[in-house]
């Protein structure tokens, strides 16, 4: 009778419940020779070192491609040999000669020669993709690069610059990913229509590094394997797998469950909570990335010097430091991140609403004003924006937050149509000029300027400071150079339309059986090939 109508769903429900129980499989740890890293790396768009310029891709390149030299992760001011065993600078400071290491081989088995080195640098300049400026800033162009970068012997390469730059500046740039050494034979065998292997290398690998890239699926996975042809100490791990996981909570779960060995994007709360877990350890390193709020000088209110200063007194640095960026950032008020030559640690600003009010009154805005701020909907940026919104309100400044996806806020920022913007800037290479170039240089403030550094994006016209920044890049005496940057930072703190808030401290949490994990100061210096697993 009608009973059947009841029985049927009943047993189906039972079956579903059974299936659910069956699904509860044992959660195994990852294999001993495999390191599983969970990380948000959806910014990676290519595997070609000549084009790659994203934070996550930097790490992949750093592990898989050798370059002429690397900086010492323990003391970034020191340079270490990589494929070049030694180097010299000519007395006029314009010619750099690199002597290559003997017997090094690419993962393909091809030997590493000076031809490969010259080809790699020439290729980067000729393709002229985003990071090419790191090389072209020394006067290399498509037309002259074949003369300026030359293989002068089987294992000797020379590089000629247009001016006599600070040698440390030039050599620091040679550690960047764009100067990675490619397997010329392999790349050129894949060339199509004279593209120098560009189409192929986007998703393939032609390097000599300790790990080789086996597979990359955007927004999903990046798999690296040990390169048995590596010249140096071979990786203990057979493979390193990066899995793209966007959510911090998810990363933490995977780590806690043992489904992942290292989690990279945990929130301050997650890191706090994990401190109680015996099986999990944490390691952190201050990065070359600073977070700031900038004030567009096209907005008449924000262009007033008093308002610029007032904004700096309206951020509760300490409270933000103890909560929103606890574990993941250090309050920092200078455009040079700690670790770069000459970086200042001065912190004159703190939350002082009365002082800000006084400044606003002086600016003729005693009742405050209304202004918008473009904010990416990611943490901790959004949290900081909301906190600043609250504190600014106390001085009468009414900030309307305009949330948006990363690319959206950036598009607006680059068009200079924002009022306020909260963002970050990471060092492109390990030299103070990288940040001075963008924060303190604005050679042309017109709307159709050729370069659009951060100073330009906020319409901050600074001919004097620009000159100082240029001079510092050419100063060959390191101590003197340091002093110049200190001076620039002091001026910048007082007058700039940038409210520097904190320097990023990148923290990774890892299973206790993982050893020798060290986060590098730049993304290309986080070396997974040195990691071992018990």
């Amino acid at each position: 009778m009608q009973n059947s109508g009841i029985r049927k769903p009943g047993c189906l429900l039972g079956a579903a419940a059974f299936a659910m129980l069956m699904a509860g499989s044992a959660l195994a740890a990852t294999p001993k020779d495999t390191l599983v890293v969970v990380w948000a790396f959806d910014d990676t768009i290519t595997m070609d070192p000549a084009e790659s310029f994203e934070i996550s891709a930097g790490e992949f390149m750093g592990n898989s491609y050798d370059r002429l030299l690397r900086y010492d992760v323990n003391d970034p001011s020191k340079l270490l040999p990589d494929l070049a065993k030694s180097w010299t600078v000519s007395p006029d400071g314009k010619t750099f000669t690199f002597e290559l290491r003997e017997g090094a081989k690419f993962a393909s088995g091809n030997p590493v020669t000076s031809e490969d080195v010259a080809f790699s640098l020439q290729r980067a300049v000729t393709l002229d993709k985003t990071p090419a400026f790191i090389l072209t800033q020394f006067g290399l162009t498509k037309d002259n690069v074949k003369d300026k970068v030359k293989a002068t012997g089987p294992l000797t390469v020379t590089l000629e610059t247009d001016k006599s730059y600070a040698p440390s500046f030039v050599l620091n740039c040679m550690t960047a990913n764009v100067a990675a050494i490619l397997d010329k034979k392999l790349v050129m065998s894949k060339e199509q229509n004279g593209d120098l292997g560009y189409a192929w290398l986007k998703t393939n690998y032609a390097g000599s590094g300790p790990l080789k890239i086996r597979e990359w699926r955007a927004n999903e996975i990046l798999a690296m394997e040990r390169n048995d042809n590596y010249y140096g100490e071979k990786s203990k791990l057979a493979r390193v797998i990066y899995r793209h996981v966007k959510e911090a909570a998810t990363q933490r779960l995977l780590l806690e469950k043992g489904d992942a060995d290292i989690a990279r994007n945990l929130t301050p709360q997650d890191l706090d909570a994990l401190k109680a877990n015996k099986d999990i350890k944490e390691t952190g390193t201050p990065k070359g990335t600073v977070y700031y709020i900038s004030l567009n000088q096209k907005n008449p209110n924000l262009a007033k010097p008093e308002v610029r200063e007032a904004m700096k007194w309206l951020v509760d640095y300490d409270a933000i430091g103890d909560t929103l960026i606890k574990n993941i950032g250090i309050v920092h008020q200078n455009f040079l991140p700690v670790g770069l030559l000459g970086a200042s640690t001065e912190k004159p600003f703190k939350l002082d609403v009365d002082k800000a009010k006084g400044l606003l009154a002086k600016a003729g805005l005693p009742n405050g004003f209304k202004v918008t701020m473009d904010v990416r909907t990611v943490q901790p940026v959004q949290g900081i924006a909301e906190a600043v919104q609250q504190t600014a309100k106390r001085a009468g400044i009414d900030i309307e937050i305009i949330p948006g996806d990363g690319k959206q806020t950036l598009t607006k920022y680059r068009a200079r149509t924002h009022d306020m913007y909260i963002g970050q800037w990471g060092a492109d290479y390990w030299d103070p000029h990288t940040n001075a170039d963008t924060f303190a240089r604005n050679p042309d403030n017109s709307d159709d300027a050729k370069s659009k550094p951060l100073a330009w994006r906020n319409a901050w016209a600074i001919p004097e400071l620009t000159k100082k920044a240029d001079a510092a890049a050419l100063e060959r005496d390191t101590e003197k150079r340091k002093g110049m940057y200190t001076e620039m930072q002091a001026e910048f703190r007082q007058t700039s339309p940038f409210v520097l808030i904190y320097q990023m401290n990148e923290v990774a949490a890892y299973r206790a059986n993982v050893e020798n994990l060290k986060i590098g100061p730049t993304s290309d210096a986080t070396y997974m090939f040195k990691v071992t697993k018990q």
Partner: protein
Amino acid sequence: MTIAEQTRGGGRRSARLLRGADTVGRFLLVIFLTYLGLLAVTFFIGRVIPIDPVLAVVGDRAPEHVIQRVREEMGLNKPLWEQFFIYCRKVLQGDFGTSVLTSNPVMQDIRRAFPATIELATLGTIMGAGLGVPLGVWAAVRRGGVADQLVRVMGLIGYSVPIFWLGLMGLLVFYARLGWVGGPGRIDVAYEYSLTPVTGFMLLDTAIAGEWEAFGNAFSHLILPASLLGYFSLAYISRMTRSFMLNELNQEYVIAARAKGLTETRIIWRHALRNAMVPLVTVIALSYAGLLEGSVLTETVFAWPGLGLYITNSLQNADMNAVLGGTIVVGSIFIGLNLLSDILYRLLDPRTKTR
């Protein structure tokens, strides 16, 4: 003939003519126009979005001359209509372009993302229909009773709960606290690496490879999001089943069958349900289409690399080739399944046959 029929006679005749001309050609034209509209809407939204597509290609640090060059390479400096025309011409040649974000041809990306969505949607629909139909029948038979109210409330809850929230809480309880199911993603990383995708369906791939441990693992990842989607389609399917069944149970043939002394079980399951099945097929097909279109929120919460996530991600980066390719696929599913349910309806329904 009523007045209405007289006055509308002309209109009806032309309608009949149109129906007569309802041939393959006309049908194709309709589909073509729908596609064109779909493409045009997506294309222009994509161009209106205040995101510079060049940014996704070259990043924030690129020098100005690189940006300008890439803009030209991408054809973005041409007038909109010309860009659209170029795009359409390429699509007609079967070239959907390359995704900026993944550096892969868009179709290759979709071939990878779509099976993930199909796997999820299929299991969800099987669960939803497998449970929803009997529950709906049960509710209809016990109309007004406790069972009916129970099924009704269950359905309404399904309609009311934010799926991303339920997914989040589900992960918290079943994965984080209880460890009964696999976490986000389609399979544990360790297995993912050792598998060579053949079909793109994790369950099939692992079964083909004979990796039963991996199969179980994939299933444990699939079960929670699929159950969620299953619950949502259950809410819809059980509700529709109930109303179709009530309709059937009020029909004369049921009364006649009862009079003939057939058992109630037979009447309900053999006769009434079979007739109710006709519109139900449409309902199930449409709910399947809904799930196939990519459940953006579920995929977001479970980090499920499916179509919904792919399109959303591309949209936020103004990766228009990918968005357009994804939209065409989704539109095809909608049009295809609508068509299919239409055909099934005609095949199954005896009334449409005689007409």
